[in-house]
């Protein structure tokens, strides 16, 4: 029972952390190395909410807005000039990650900070066991996030043109879609979602200038094996996240920490399309 919950909640957390990265990867075909930086921005946004004395429920919304604004600025200044140089784009975003970390260090100091959590304690399960309430809550949040994103992509005009750009950017441009605008919107949205995820993980994680880094590589690999689909991302999170939990459980957590990256690398080598169909 608790293993099952571990898998489910781990997958949910991974999904929340990866969603923004997946969008950017899908539309722009670059891996955003500043993703960890955006997670950190989210964590510190939640910290600001705590400092302002607002209710912790404000943190995700606040984090989303701050992340999206940062994303807009960065897309204009750094990412846009690098459309035609995807490898340089990942290097530049990685450099941005350093900058974000250092700016936060200078502003808030290097020490671990503490953020109020909206929900604390454990929920008693039938059978006498108990499980962290917040982790269970995150499952609901991840599902809601997935459904919202799906609704946006499937049901809105922005979603439609975004999907068109994902499938074939040249064709989309030929059809009169302003793909530059789509990229701008996607990057901002991706940054906002990363920041949102950063605020969501604060009750579990610490808030410090490097808080995003440990998530980074797992997120890259999950997105790469997912192709560009939210559904295959969900599958990848459950399968690889599940593998991580099982390896940690039956082997040890150190091997568990390497499970996702190593498995994903081999999956991609043997089946380049990863978990996506086609």
């Amino acid at each position, binding site marked *: 029972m608790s293993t099952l919950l571990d898998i489910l*909640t781990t997958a949910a957390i991974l999904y929340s952390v990866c969603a923004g990265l997946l969008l950017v990867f899908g539309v722009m075909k670059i891996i955003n190395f500043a993703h960890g930086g955006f997670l950190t921005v989210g964590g510190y946004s939640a910290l600001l909410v705590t400092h302002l004395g607002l209710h912790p429920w404000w943190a995700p919304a606040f984090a989303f807005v701050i992340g999206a604004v940062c994303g807009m600025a960065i897309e204009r200044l750094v990412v846009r000039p690098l459309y035609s140089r995807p490898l340089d784009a990942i290097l530049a975003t990685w450099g941005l990650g350093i900058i974000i970390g250092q700016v936060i260090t200078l502003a808030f100091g290097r*020490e671990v900070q503490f953020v109020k959590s909206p929900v604390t304690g454990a929920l008693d399960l039938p059978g006498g*066991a108990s499980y962290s309430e*917040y*982790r269970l809550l995150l499952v609901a949040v991840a599902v809601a996030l997935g459904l919202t994103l799906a609704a946006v992509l499937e049901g809105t005009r922005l979603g439609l043109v975004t999907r068109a750009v994902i499938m074939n950017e040249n064709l989309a441009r030929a059809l009169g879609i302003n793909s530059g605008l789509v990229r701008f919107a996607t990057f901002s949205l991706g940054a906002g979602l990363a920041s949102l995820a950063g605020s969501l993980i604060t009750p579990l994680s*610490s808030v410090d200038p490097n808080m995003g880094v440990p998530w980074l590589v797992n997120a890259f690999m999950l997105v790469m094996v997912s192709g560009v689909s939210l559904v295959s991302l969900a599958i990848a999170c459950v399968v690889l996240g599940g593998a991580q*939990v099982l390896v940690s459980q039956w082997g040890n*957590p*150190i091997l568990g920490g390497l499970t996702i990256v190593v498995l994903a690398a081999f999956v991609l080598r043997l089946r380049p399309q990863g978990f996506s169909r086609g």
Partner: protein
Amino acid sequence: MQSKKTGPLVRAAQWATLATFATALTLPAAHAEDVIRIGIPVGLSGANSVVAPSVVQSAELAAEEINAKGGILGKKVVLEVADDGSGAAGAQKAFDSLIFQKKVNVLISMETSAARNAGLPIVTRGKTPFIYTSFYEGRSCNKYLYVNAWVPDQQVAPIVDYFAKNYKAKTYFLVGSDYAFGRGMLEFTRGYITKIGGKVVGEEYLPMDGSDWTSVISKLKAANPDALITSTAGGAPNVTLTKQLRAAGVKIPYGNLAVDEGTAKSMGADAEGIYISGSYFTNIASPKNQAFMAAMQKKFGANLKTPNDLSVPQYEGVYAYKMAVEKAGSTDADKVIAALAEVAFEGPRGVIQMNKQRHAPLTMYLGKVTKEGGVEVLETFKDVDPGEQCPKLK
């Protein structure tokens, strides 16, 4: 490339780069004034950067006090602080620069084990005494090295003994970060628990930057031990583990070998009830400690970084060096090395003499984090022996 357009800016950048390099090449070498230079390689950036300012502050207080009373052998004490980046590569640069450029007479500092190890070959080459003031996993031995902080042999026993006595704990679960200190501490802990007749029912590690303790906590719950002892890396891993333990509803006695007073305080309610053991807490009721705290408060006022188990040994280390030089009558490395084992300084942590294979017997305290985030001292253990650390070095 639009280099043509960016001409002036770019040219300025080039000159800046060249100038930097030229400056680096021509920086003045050591000035042969009549002072005693104390090198402090410390992690101003990287993992140790949270605690480093407090270490520098206590060294500054010691230097100020010594200079106010006429220095060492009539020479003024000058501190040279260098950033070791909390790692090996940074430490090599810091040690090189302190020993060969600044020509310091001694190194006194707390560092990560990787930084210390990286510095030791340079210390040997430069024949400079080195007083290491950080608690660590033990058994680092070098002709020029002295240690005045605790090792596992001194720190583990108080907690385990207390759990065995007061909670009748028989089964223990150990959790650590996967690094030298984490593994070294728990290895010793396991041995000690077995020695006193207890049983270790689980031992789990997470990578040093890991923050997801889910499976460790699941295993902990499944093992249902009487007590938990953890030794994680300081800062983030310690905090995430404690948060996640509390969220998962773990309520067994919890001994934390890696938390310091400051971190415990800022963790708030989650830290309440954690048992910690150390050689220094701010509310040790000795006159020396009260005088020290007052002096620190006076010197740094609002900027004071709370003194702790890493910064206080730094303060004492400076004094130990002063006494050793005075005893040796010179700053000659070999004479100072010989004298360091023979001098005893009474500081905030009590009387400390590094006479046990380059390590020091220490008075250890067992404390419990209170609701307000302070530490209540439960028991005191006098002069705990560091055990066999460097048998080859006497």
